């Protein structure tokens, strides 16, 4: 029996020592569940989804929608935003969006590195160009809403823990460079296969991405109008962009595995009521869209608009958007926006005839949006009977108000950007009704809490958050 014991003991010891050798342990700790690298075409797919759903489509748009009075916040966070209590100044309000934007930028940088010189997909110019255009797009939303933000030191996790802020002016210079680089790369030929189905937006059609890049340039040049007006360049770029809504850059939802964010915001949260001030603008114009934009809340039998700034905090009472359908698209850049940009630039340059043509095209496209569904004829009637005379009496006001109405409700961020730019330029043509705006219009969005709590550079820029009510971003006449 002792012999047996000795054998057992030595056996256990040998196994014990072998069982913890480097090779055995490495093998045990191997992650068999996740890939350690993938090709750029598999990464860019989700950049598009995230850009549409998370960055352009949801939280930032929801809050913009409240501030710009496309909707009225009637419950919880949206209500707090409506009555300017907490939400507009809190670092946590936009934290999820803040993180998503930088995550987008990080993924895009990875793609750009892969597709650039020395990368594993060197010469993949089309994916590179798309990535640069989307990079410019995300970076612009980031700085448009938040002003000076980390950029040149950003995106180095584990290396730089506390990136410093870059000025919005410098970031805008880079945005325009990225757009130009995108235009250059999208024009090159490549041996890499097109993105095809991995491209949810254009199915790999490089020509359309090129038009998107030109359209972005038009948008960003217009954005800087208060600082450096370049209306002729806006028109030149816009002319190289979309020529119909079939070419516009929008993300479509299928209503089963993907849902339109405004639709889900209603089903999951039910925080919005129909905006009284927007309804007033439509009524003033006898706009046929007023029967299309809204419907009674399913839990209510009556039709009621929510007063801007002073709704009662109650769900199931106020009417709601009728165009928040499960498949309502998210527009990254719409054809009607391109036409509105041209219309404004022509007005600014005094070419009212060209402006009117562009405006008519824009309204027609806005009427025919998939979740509006009006005919071109209805748009023409409306233009001839209502818009035309209003345009004649105040061209800029009508262009900008029509753009504001057309942007309901998916393009709230861009409506918010326009309002701030117009205000800086002294063109207060869009009237908002929230009485709190006299002292508490949020001129910008706060930084994300993930930086405010871990990055002292952002923390000191954030302060107590009340700067949002007083300081405008650089392109809107502020300093940062």
């Amino acid at each position, binding site marked *: 029996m002792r012999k047996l014991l000795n054998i057992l*003991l030595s056996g256990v010891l040998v196994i014990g020592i072998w069982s913890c050798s480097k090779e055995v342990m490495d093998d045990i700790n191997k992650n068999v569940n996740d890939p350690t690298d993938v090709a750029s075409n598999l990464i860019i797919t989700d950049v598009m*989804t995230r850009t549409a759903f998370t960055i352009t489509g949801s939280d930032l748009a929801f809050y913009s929608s409240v501030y710009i009075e496309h909707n009225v916040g009637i419950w919880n966070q949206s209500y707090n935003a409506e009555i300017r209590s*907490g939400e507009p100044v809190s670092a946590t309000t936009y934290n999820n969006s803040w993180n998503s934007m930088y*995550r987008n930028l990080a993924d895009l940088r990875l793609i750009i590195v892969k597709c650039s010189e020395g990368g594993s997909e060197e010469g993949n110019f089309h994916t590179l160009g798309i990535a640069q255009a989307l990079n410019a797009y995300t970076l612009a939303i980031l700085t448009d809403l938040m002003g000076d933000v980390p950029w040149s030191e950003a995106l180095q996790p584990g290396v730089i823990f506390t990136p410093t802020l870059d000025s919005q002016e410098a970031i805008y210079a880079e945005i325009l460079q990225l757009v130009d680089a995108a235009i250059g790369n999208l024009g090159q030929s490549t041996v890499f296969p097109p993105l095809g189905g991995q491209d949810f937006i254009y199915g790999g059609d490089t020509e359309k991405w090129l038009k998107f890049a030109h359209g972005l340039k038009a948008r960003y040049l217009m954005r800087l109008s208060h600082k450096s007006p370049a209306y002729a360049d806006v028109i030149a770029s816009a002319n190289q962009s979309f020529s119909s809504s079939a070419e516009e850059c929008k993300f479509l939802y299928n209503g*089963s*595995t993907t849902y339109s964010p405004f639709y889900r915001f209603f089903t999951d949260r*039910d925080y919005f009521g129909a905006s009284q001030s927007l309804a007033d603008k439509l009524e003033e114009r006898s706009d046929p869209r007023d029967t299309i934009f809204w419907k009674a809340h399913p839990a209510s039998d009556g039709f009621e608009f929510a007063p801007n700034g002073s709704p009662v905090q109650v769900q199931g*009472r106020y009417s709601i958007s009728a165009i928040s359908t499960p498949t309502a698209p998210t527009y990254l850049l719409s054809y009607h926006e391109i036409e509105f940009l041209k219309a404004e630039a022509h007005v600014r340059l005094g070419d009212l005839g060209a402006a009117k043509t562009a405006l008519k095209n824009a309204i027609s496209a806005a009427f025919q949006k998939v979740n509006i569904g009006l005919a071109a004829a209805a748009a023409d009637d409306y233009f001839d009977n209502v818009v035309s005379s209003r345009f004649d009496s105040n061209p800029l006001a009508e262009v900008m108000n029509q753009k504001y109405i057309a942007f309901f409700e998916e393009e709230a961020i861009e409506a918010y950007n326009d309002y701030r730019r117009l205000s800086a330029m002294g063109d207060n043509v869009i009237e908002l009704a929230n009485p709190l705006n006299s002292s508490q219009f949020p001129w910008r969005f706060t930084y994300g809490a993930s930086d405010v709590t871990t990055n002292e550079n952002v923390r000191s820029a954030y302060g107590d958050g009340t700067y949002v009510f007083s300081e405008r971003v650089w392109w809107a006449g502020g300093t940062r």
Partner: protein
Amino acid sequence: MLVFLLVAGISHAFAQTRTVTGKVTSSEDGSGVPGVTVFVKGTTTGTVTDLDGNYSFDVPPEARTLVFSFIGMRTQEVEIAGRSNINVTMETDVVALDELVVTAFGISRERKSLGYAVQDVDNEAIARTSNSDLLGALQGKIAGVDIKPSSGMPGASSQFQIRGARSFTGNNTPLYVVDGMPISSEPAYSTLNSVTGADISNRAIDINPNDIESIEVLKGQAASALYGIRASNGVIIITTKSGKSNQIGRPVVSISHSSSFDQVSRTPDYQTTWAQGTGGNYVPTSSMSWGPRIVDLPDDPNHGGNNFDRPGYFRVPQLELAGLDPWVLPKVYNNWDDYYQTGYTMSNNINVSQATNEGHFSLGFSNTEQTGIALNTGMTRYNVRANAERNLNDNFKVGFSANYSTVDIDKLSGANDGSLTGILAAPSSYNLAGIPYHRPGEPTRQIYFRGGSFDNPYWVPDNNTFNENTNRFFGNAYINYKAILDHSKTLNVRYQAGADTYTTHLQDIFGYGSRGNSRGVIDNYGKTNSIFNSLLTASLDWKITDDLDFNVMVGNELNHENTKEYEETGQNFNFPGWNHIGNASVVSANEAQWQRRIVGFFGSFSLSWRSMLFLNATGRNDIVSTMPTDNRSFFYPSVSLSFVASELNALRDIDWLSYAKIRASYAEVGQAGTYYDNFFVSPTYSGGFWIGNPIQYPIGGISAYIPSYSLYDPNLKPQNTKSYEIGIDLKFLDNRLGIDYTFSNQNVTDQIFPVPLAGSTGSGTLVMNGGAITTDVHEIMLYTTPVRTRDFRWDININYTKLTNMVDELAPGVESIFLGGFVTPQVRAGIGNTFPVIYGTSFVRDDAGNIVVVDDPGAWNHGFPQAGDPDVIGEASPDFILNGTTAFTYKSLSLSTVFEWKNGGQMYSGSNGLLDLYGMSAVTEDRESTFIYEGVKPDGTPNDIVRGGPNDPRAIERLYADVLSNVDEYYIHDNSFVKLREISLRYQLPRNIYKTATAGISLYARNILLWTELRNLDPETSQGNTNMGGSFERFSLPQTTSYGFTLDITF
């Protein structure tokens, strides 16, 4: 088998017998002692003394020795030597001096030799009030330990920490060792942010408290250092019932039954005046109760019967939807009391055990059936247990221990998925129990008093499912070789192999028609977790001289864990009535497999001199698979010293001092992290505003992969805990008074945790070293027997714990770490704060800390406070915890209680906030008086702005609904409490009910809340099975108070 054993046992009864009589008296006052067990040594033949201490029974002719035993008195063995009358004087034995305790790897040591604190809890203390949850049964009984239950739901998770936390986001749960085999006790899944879904049980729920013979708690790192990297959080050594302590001979069968009735421990104080609505108007779809007076509802312009020819009535549209007469008389309902039912818990235990000269065995079977206080909650558990040991010859001994359990738990969801949110704050004017919860003939179309995503609580049981089903086996087999080498040396070699494997299946279903997910979602997930453990130890005892003993031990342990997880999620059921993955129109699935291995080599040596001075040192080297290749191997030492001063001649003569010991120890123990090469993941879109997943890959057959938002530092090294502990144990007055004091300090450095990165770095977290936390703990155990007479005895045990857990350092630039909750409020670890703290929006305050109100005449919030910056708004950790037991024994009757006083500490109470926001709490009852909010105006003068009154009727509503509801600090409450955790009255029948059969009956109650600073709710109600537990409550299921009885028979 069982029949055979019974027959074998009974066969003793046939031989010629003779009668022995006598009296047992007490050494204190000479009076007779009743209830003393008298039996023939080596058999079960025996009796119990009567009320005067007399006994008489027949003994077999071969009987040599009688054993006299009684709890609290020293057991005596008396030679019969032909006598037929034997009188015995028994001495009291308050504290057994040479008590043996089990330390690491089952090593038995005398308590006095230990240089660190250990504390034991015996079966009686655990099972006294038949708590089905082991952690619940330990509450209030151990110093230095904090057990925080999450709710009164059957199977609810608890947080169990010994001497505070060592890890911010990782595991702080002690290692459980059952019959020598380490088993897993953590939840199979974390509740993560803990603001959606249902609670997930700790795997300690698989253990039936009634199977436990005793529990030894190794608190400090020095005590547990031999267990290496897994034992930095202390060790719970559980010994299950065996036949080892039986008298040799007949098998012993014990049967017990327990029934208890559970009630919700507290009903919130509701306002009973005001109806559903807002702004003083009746709004039948509102979640709030800021409407008109309930008695005035018939006057409502839109729904009041006085305007529609139904004087005195008002119209409830929900009744219309249900196809019923909508006109009802105004009435006040208590929807809370209407909903909660009396829960019922039943447990049955059967245990058979026997000891023979060759070994012993024990078999146990038990079941627990629990029905919760909330509809459709409950737990069913079956446990089967067997262990046996057999001596093969003088040297070899083999044995095994095996445990099987099956646990099925039906739960409900909390927080933002709160199943019972509607119960908490339903308007007093709405008859939630009485109005149908779905439309006639359409069971999936809900009728409810409010909008939003919460489901009607009465609709939930038939449509939503939260279920956990776990099957588990753990056990081990061993062979032990013992050889006496010579008169002074003994060698002991033991090899043990064991397994712990469980498979758990969880199901979360929001059925078709659920308001957050109109066509429903289903999530089926689970894992199989298997641990193999191999343990070899060899030890040598060497009595070098009469005064000097030496012991050395070496060993090897291999622990290998295999995990396989699966998850299948479905959305949008095609048709109602079949909430099954096969009916989901969008389905996705995933699986994952992991392995971990720890191989440890360890050794210890100890020296003892004259039962006075004891030195013990240990060392262990662990090699861990989950660390980076070059950072896998670590060594941890410990050393401890015990000095029994009362053995000194100078102290021996002091009458009042019976025992004095000074002890000190030092140890280092690590905790490994989990390292992987950075990887890509499939994107997910849950969280934020979304219920479920609004985007679900693959989209139209297209997948995508993105870099994981969690990164790993390739230079990861293990976190290190350095700790020291000093203590003194004193016993006075013939051991009638004892006090143990321990001070310990833990210094945890190089914490491993997912360091939150600034979003601008493009990533979320980096698993790296960083951060330090120190813990100072004062523990005092006091035990005394103030009264001790012939019939009456009073014992008191008191544990006092004062613990300071400070976060000294986090990763560079990081101010805080998220543990759970929302963006705000959240539970987090913050530098310079105790652990953990609650962070959220604070009040705007001046430099002196006064709340600053708005001074803006005409503004709606004139005179009201305002939301300020996010800040630390509450500290969860208490100032001290004082708990203990006291027992009164009178003859065969004993009354024992366990109490606990937690002083200090705060929690976030989302439910209290909601009650105020919705105008349902009693504090919102008075809406007509004027008031001045306590604070100062911006100029620093005391606030004198009067709000409210007849001309300002909405002031109270706007204060609660629009101001305070947005200030997280308002939701923070002190939650000190005093609880009677247990009270039980036991009557042990003084005479055998039949031959050798004894019986007892106990009546008990649990969790009687005596006093708390928290309003409306039981303070031990919270969200999460993670380190945030106990500090964050939001529509969590309420706690219960239980009343029950136990019957037990042993023969």
